[in-house]
């Protein structure tokens, strides 16, 4: 075998002694093969890959195990010897391309650095070699881009530079650690297709580390499923997804949103989807909403003549990629920002009459609330869960804060004893529940859900989505669900709006938009999402 990892165990020294990060991990990789390592956060998938490269974080230690790479026993190599391996034999593509690039050096020079470190080029030939490497990752006008700084490039372009860096010295193994997390779905497709094409044409082997089963299914020859530092199952995508042997693999597949299933099918055991509330009169009306930033020639139109209605009890999905204006739209509806022109009406009365800066004291503040994208960042690090939930109760209502807080905790399924913990002491799912409880505190009629599950693992996402469906059935709340993921939106929403460059390009019934999109952009979005085949398990 080209790469063989056997009995790998890595531990980290922490204050409470050694903590095992991975135990007895074994997998192998043939020449030219693409291996997917799949698992949720904390499953040890990244640590396993870092152990191969010997780039563990401070305190991390290889406890035991054999890492054999093309006849070399890497686990016996010293750091000095590994330096010749890294970049030349094995290289890596990291999750956040912006963080992986030096912000104050031109990208061309950064590629030159790698080439010269491994003596692939002379000082005089470095520039042309770097440009060649950029051309290989399909960067337009590489001579011009050579002089760019990372901040001048988009996320997808930066990731291409990182790939160019990784492939500059023709390594034989490429490790990609969540290479497309944080990128838009269409960019994700471009980047993943590029990695697949380059590794195939150069006969390289690759390891793709991802939390996304769909991505692994589409791009990998074989998949290793990890959980809590151990390998639970290995197999080909077809075998694994159609006949998963392990209970955890089954649960993971079940929780992944895919075509042809309902929201209740995500959880184990499957359940009946909760009732959707009856749809009533228009609750919120958005009329010709426009928002521009900047002045004169530098004017950027973020939201351009957007109009739509949300009816009471309805769930509307607002879908688009980053920069399409969906967040700007939602913050204007939330009255955190003022529109440049246009009107927002609640129950037929204008909301935009009160400027955003004075809306905190408007009695209608209670009616509009929001669940934020990153639950952890949306909670004050110095507030306990109880304080966070009680804050809107004290500010906006006359209810008894303590009693109401515990009632809300019960509604969102947060154990009362966790209420006195701080955000960093709670898990991602628990923080999401705190965020939802806080948003519900003032008994809002419209709740904006701004990618509430984007930062969560799929199994937690499944639970949170079901919680949101339950709350809607119990409280009859109207949702505006903002997301980049059509498959997630479909599960919760009756109607979908697709936004692109500040405009709504498609609007319609959720099932219809998914099965029969009329706008080409919607089709592109749907195609780009790597989804699992329609499975029934």
């Amino acid at each position: 075998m080209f790469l063989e990892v056997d009995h790998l165990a890595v531990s980290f020294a922490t204050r409470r002694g050694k903590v095992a990060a991975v135990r007895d991990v074994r997998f192998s990789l043939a020449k030219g093969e693409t291996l997917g390592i799949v698992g949720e956060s904390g499953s040890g998938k990244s640590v396993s890959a870092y152990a191969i490269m010997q780039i563990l974080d401070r305190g991390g230690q290889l406890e035991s195990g054999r890492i054999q790479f093309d006849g070399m026993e890497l686990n016996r190599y010293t750091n000095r010897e590994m330096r010749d391996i890294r970049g030349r034999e094995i290289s890596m593509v990291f999750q956040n391309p912006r963080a992986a690039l030096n912000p104050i050096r031109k990208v061309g020079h950064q590629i030159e650095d790698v080439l010269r470190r491994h003596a692939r080029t002379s000082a005089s030939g470095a520039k042309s070699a770097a440009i060649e490497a950029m051309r290989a990752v399909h960067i337009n006008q590489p001579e011009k881009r050579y002089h760019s700084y990372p901040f001048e490039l988009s996320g997808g372009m930066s990731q291409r530079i990182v790939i160019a860096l990784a492939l500059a010295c023709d390594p034989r193994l490429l490790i990609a650690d969540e290479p497309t997390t944080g990128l838009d779905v269409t960019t994700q497709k471009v980047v993943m297709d590029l990695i697949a094409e380059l590794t195939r044409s150069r006969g390289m082997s690759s390891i793709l580390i991802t939390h996304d089963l769909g991505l692994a299914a589409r791009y990998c020859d074989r998949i290793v499923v990890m959980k809590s530092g151990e390998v639970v199952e290995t197999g080909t995508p077809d075998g694994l997804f159609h006949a998963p042997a392990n209970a955890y693999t089954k649960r993971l597949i079940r929780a992944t949103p895919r075509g042809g299933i309902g929201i209740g099918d995500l959880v184990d055991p499957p359940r009946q989807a909760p009732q959707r509330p009856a749809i009533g009169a228009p609750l919120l009306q958005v009329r010709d909403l426009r928002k521009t930033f900047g002045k004169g020639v530098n004017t950027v139109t973020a939201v351009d003549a957007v109009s739509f209605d949300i009816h009471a009890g309805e769930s509307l999905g607002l879908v688009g990629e980053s920069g399409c204006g969906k967040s700007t739209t939602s913050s204007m509806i939330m009255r955190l920002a003022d529109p440049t022109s246009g009107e927002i009406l609640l129950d037929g009365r204008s909301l935009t009459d009160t400027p955003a800066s004075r809306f905190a004291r408007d009695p209608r503040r209670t009616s509009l609330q929001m669940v934020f994208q990153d639950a952890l960042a949306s909670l004050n690090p110095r507030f306990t869960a109880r304080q966070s939930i009680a804050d809107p109760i004290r500010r906006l209502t006359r209810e008894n804060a303590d009693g109401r807080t515990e009632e809300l905790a019960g509604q969102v399924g947060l154990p009362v004893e966790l209420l006195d913990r701080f955000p960093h002491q709670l898990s991602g799912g628990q923080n999401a529940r705190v965020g939802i409880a806080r948003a519900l505190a003032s008994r809002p009629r419209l709740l904006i859900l701004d990618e509430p599950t984007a930062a969560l693992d799929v199994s937690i996402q499944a639970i949170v989505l079901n919680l949101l469906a339950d709350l809607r059935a119990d409280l009859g709340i109207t949702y505006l669900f903002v997301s980049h993921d059509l498959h997630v939106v479909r599960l919760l929403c009756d109607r979908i709006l697709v936004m692109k460059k500040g405009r709504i390009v498609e609007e319609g019934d959720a099932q219809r938009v998914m099965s029969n999109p009329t706008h080409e952009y919607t089709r592109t979005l749907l195609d780009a999402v790597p989804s699992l085949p329609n499975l029934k398990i």
Partner: protein
Amino acid sequence: MADRQSVAPPIAPARTRRLLGHAVYVIGDNPITAIAFALFALIIGVAVFGPLLIPFDPLETNASRALMPPSLDNWFGTDNLGRDLFSRVIIATRLDLMISVAAVALAFVVGAAMGSAAGYWGGWIDIVTGRLIDTIMAFPLFVLAMGIVAALGNTVENIIYATAIINLPFYARVARAEVRIRRDSGFVQAARLSGNSDLRILALHIFPNTLPPMMVQISLNMGWAILNAAGLSFIGLGVRPPTPEWGIMVAEGANFVVSGEWWLAFFPGLALMITVFAFNLLGDGLRDIVDPRQRT
């Protein structure tokens, strides 16, 4: 506020215990921090209990015992008027510490308020405070302090004001930067949606989160403020003889170093050095304690 406190009690003990446990861990990890905390405790102890510790009256002169080198009776020797140096160094601790604590507290309160407002609202508030701070920073700071004391008059209060003014820009800048990075963060937006006014958001949501870096700044600044107060006294501004104060004592003793009576300047200088050293080390230790990355 009352209902807020009703929530607090069950949390507070656990929180204090956790912080203590964390502090013990950091100190154990880095013995230098332990030394800093020990020195800090010693300095505070000397400042509080100073009058009980001294063997002689620090102001009592005795011409027959002038310029005696350190001995068992006079541990640090005596000065040109026969006063016991040990007693004077001990008594001076309280005054020096008081000046610097008051100055730093004043600088912190005013600077943090200015910086927070500038960071949160931006616009003209930012421009006005920014230019004000630039103006202060444009002067050589010690010369500015000299000028302030010379203009306002030679009193302890004026030394405090002068020291506070020259330290103010540091707090204003740290506060502005720390508030600014949190101004549009998720939890601030959430607080806005919860019906909090701007002032409440700034005071109760953002400002407490900026305290850890400010604490470090305070500790590092303390040493500097002490040095500054002593420096002003050294050149004859501020505290006047015969009040025991380290700066004056060093200034007075400096004349005698040439003729071999080194102890006059040495011991107050040593006290000054140890104090500044302790506060600087404490700053490093505090940074480790408040740094969340150390909390794993």
